[in-house]
C-alpha cells in the first residue's frame, strides 16, 4: 500500500516536472566544454593570482572578479557558435579564412604558449603535492598517468565526465572559506561596491591586469571550439552550449571569490607570491584549510594541463589532417595522441631539471601569451561577423559592441601586464 503511494507520488511528480526533467537530461548530455573550459581557467596561475589578490587587498576587489564572469562568457560564447556552425576548430578556421601566414603564426605560437603554460601547471602541481611531502618526480608520474588514463579509453564522453569530476574538486575552496569564518558584513561593505583600495596605484593596476590576464587565455578559445566540434554539437545545440558557458562563468567567478575570501580573511596584508606559499602559510593556523588549498591547487593545475595539452593536439590534428578525436583510439589517431603525450611528458620533465629557470618561464608565459591573444580574439570577431561563414548566427550589432569593447579592453590590459612583467619599474 505504502509502495503504491510512493510510486503514485513519484509518477505525479514526474508528470508535473517532466519538462524540467527533460531539459535537465538534455543539458546533462550537452554540458561539458563550457563548464570545463571555464573551470580550467582557474588553473595554477589563476589560483595564485586570486590568492595574492585576496592577501593584498582583502575583500576589496571582489566586485572586479564578478565583472570578469560576463567578460569570459562573451568571448567563449563566440567559440561555441563558431564551432557549432563551421564544425572546425579555431586553428583550422584561421588557416581557412586568413591563409597560411596567420595560420602558421597562430599554430606555432599556440603550441609554444601552451607548452610553456603546461610547465607552469606542473610547477603548481609539484608545489602543491610537495606540501604533503610527495617528491616532484612522483607527482609528475602521477599526473602523466592520470592524463594518459583519461584519453586511452577512446571515448570523448569518458574523458569529459572525468574532467567534470576534477571540475567538482575545484569546489574545495567553498568549504575552506566557511572554515575561516569571514565577516559577511565586511564582505558586503568592502567587496560589493566598486572601489579602488588605496587609490589607483601601480600595485593595484598590476593586480587588475593580472586578474584580467587570467580570465582569458589563448588556449581557452582554441580548446572550447575544438571541444564543441569533437562533441559533435550542431546549430540546434547552441542555446545549450551558451547555457553551459554561462554556468561555467558563474562557477569560475564563485571559485575565484571564495579563494579571495580565504586569503583575504587569514593572510590579509601578507605578500603572497604563489598559491603553494599561501597554502603552506595557512597550515600554521588552519591546517585543514591549508590542506584544502593544496588539493585545490593540484586540481587546478591538473585541469589546466588536461585542457591545454588537448587544445594543442586538436589544433595540430585539424591542420595536418590527422584523425584528432577523443573518440578515436590510440592506434586510430597515433599522431594526435603522440603530440598530446609528447607535450605533457616534456613539460613534466622540464620541472624535474635541477635549477631549471622556472620563475623565468612563468614570467615568459605571460609575455608570449600576448603575442597570440590579440590575434586569436581579432580573428574570432572577424569570423563571427562573416555572413558567408556564420549565416544567421553571425554577431548582432549589440553583440559586436559588447565583444569589441571587451576584446579591446583585454588586449590593452594584457599588453600592459606583459610590459609590466618585462619592465618591472614601468608603473612606478
Amino acid at each position, binding site marked *: 500500500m505504502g509502495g503504491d503511494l510512493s510510486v503514485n507520488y513519484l509518477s505525479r511528480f514526474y508528470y508535473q516536472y517532466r519538462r524540467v526533467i527533460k531539459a535537465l537530461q538534455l543539458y546533462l548530455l550537452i554540458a561539458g566544454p563550457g563548464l570545463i573550459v571555464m573551470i580550467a581557467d582557474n588553473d595554477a596561475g589563476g589560483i595564485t593570482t586570486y590568492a595574492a589578490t585576496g592577501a593584498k587587498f582583502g575583500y576589496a576587489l571582489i566586485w572586479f572578479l564578478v565583472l570578469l564572469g560576463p567578460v569570459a562568457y562573451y568571448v567563449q560564447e563566440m567559440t561555441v557558435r563558431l564551432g557549432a556552425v563551421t564544425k572546425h576548430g579555431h586553428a583550422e578556421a584561421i588557416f581557412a579564412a*586568413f591563409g*597560411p601566414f596567420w595560420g602558421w603564426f597562430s599554430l606555432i605560437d599556440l603550441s609554444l604558449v601552451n607548452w610553456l603554460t603546461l610547465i607552469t601547471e606542473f610547477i603548481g602541481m609539484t608545489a602543491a603535492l610537495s606540501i604533503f611531502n610527495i617528491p616532484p618526480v612522483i607527482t609528475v608520474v602521477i599526473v602523466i598517468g592520470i592524463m594518459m588514463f583519461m584519453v586511452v579509453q577512446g571515448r570523448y564522453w569518458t574523458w569529459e565526465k572525468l574532467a567534470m569530476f576534477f571540475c567538482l574538486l575545484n569546489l574545495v575552496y567553498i568549504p575552506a572559506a566557511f572554515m575561516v569564518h569571514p565577516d559577511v558584513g565586511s564582505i558586503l561593505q568592502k567587496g560589493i561596491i566598486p572601489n579602488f583600495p588605496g587609490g589607483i596605484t601601480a600595485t593595484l593596476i598590476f593586480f587588475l591586469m593580472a586578474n584580467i590576464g587570467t580570465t582569458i587565455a589563448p588556449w581557452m578559445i582554441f580548446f572550447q571550439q575544438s571541444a564543441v566540434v569533437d562533441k559533435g554539437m550542431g546549430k540546434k545545440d547552441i542555446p545549450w552550449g551558451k547555457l553551459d558557458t554561462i554556468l561555467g562563468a558563474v562557477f569560475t567567478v564563485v571559485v575565484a571569490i571564495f579563494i579571495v575570501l580565504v586569503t583575504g580573511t587569514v593572510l590579509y596584508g601578507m605578500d603572497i607570491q604563489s598559491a603553494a606559499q599561501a597554502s603552506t602559510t595557512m597550515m600554521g593556523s588552519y591546517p585543514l584549510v591549508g590542506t584544502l588549498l593544496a588539493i585545490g591547487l593540484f586540481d587546478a593545475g591538473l585541469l589546466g594541463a588536461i585542457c591545454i595539452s588537448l587544445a594543442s593536439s586538436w589544433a595540430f590534428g585539424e591542420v595536418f589532417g590527422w584523425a584528432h578525436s577523443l573518440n578515436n583510439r590510440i592506434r586510430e589517431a597515433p599522431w594526435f595522441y603522440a603530440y598530446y603525450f609528447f607535450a605533457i611528458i616534456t613539460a613534466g620533465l622540464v620541472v624535474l631539471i635541477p635549477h631549471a629557470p622556472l620563475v623565468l618561464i612563468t614570467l615568459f608565459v605571460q609575455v608570449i601569451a600576448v603575442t597570440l591573444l590579440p*590575434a586569436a580574439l581579432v580573428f574570432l570577431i572577424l569570423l563571427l561577423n562573416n555572413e558567408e561563414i556564420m549565416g544567421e548566427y553571425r554577431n548582432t550589432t549589440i553583440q559586436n559592441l559588447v565583444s569589441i569593447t571587451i576584446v579591446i579592453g583585454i588586449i590593452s590590459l594584457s599588453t600592459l601586464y606583459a610590459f609590466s612583467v618585462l619592465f618591472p619599474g614601468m608603473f612606478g
Partner: protein
Amino acid sequence: MEKFEPDIKSESSEGRSDRFLARHLSKFTEINKKYAKPHIRMTPMVRIALLGLRIYLIVLVLVLVYKFYTLIRV
C-alpha cells in the same frame, strides 16, 4: 639490362631520415597550397584589423628584442 633496384634493407639511416623529412616537408607544402587562398572576404574592416595586428606584433617583437638586448648588455 639489369634493372636497378634500391636495396631498402641496406638503406642508410641518413637516407631514411631524408625520406622522412621529404614526406613531412611535402605535408607543409600541401597545407600551404590547401589554404593558399583566404576564404574570408577582404572588406575594409578585415584589412584594417589585419594591418593593426601586423603593426602590434612588429612593435611587440621590437620591444622583446630591446629587452633581450638590455639583458645581454648587463
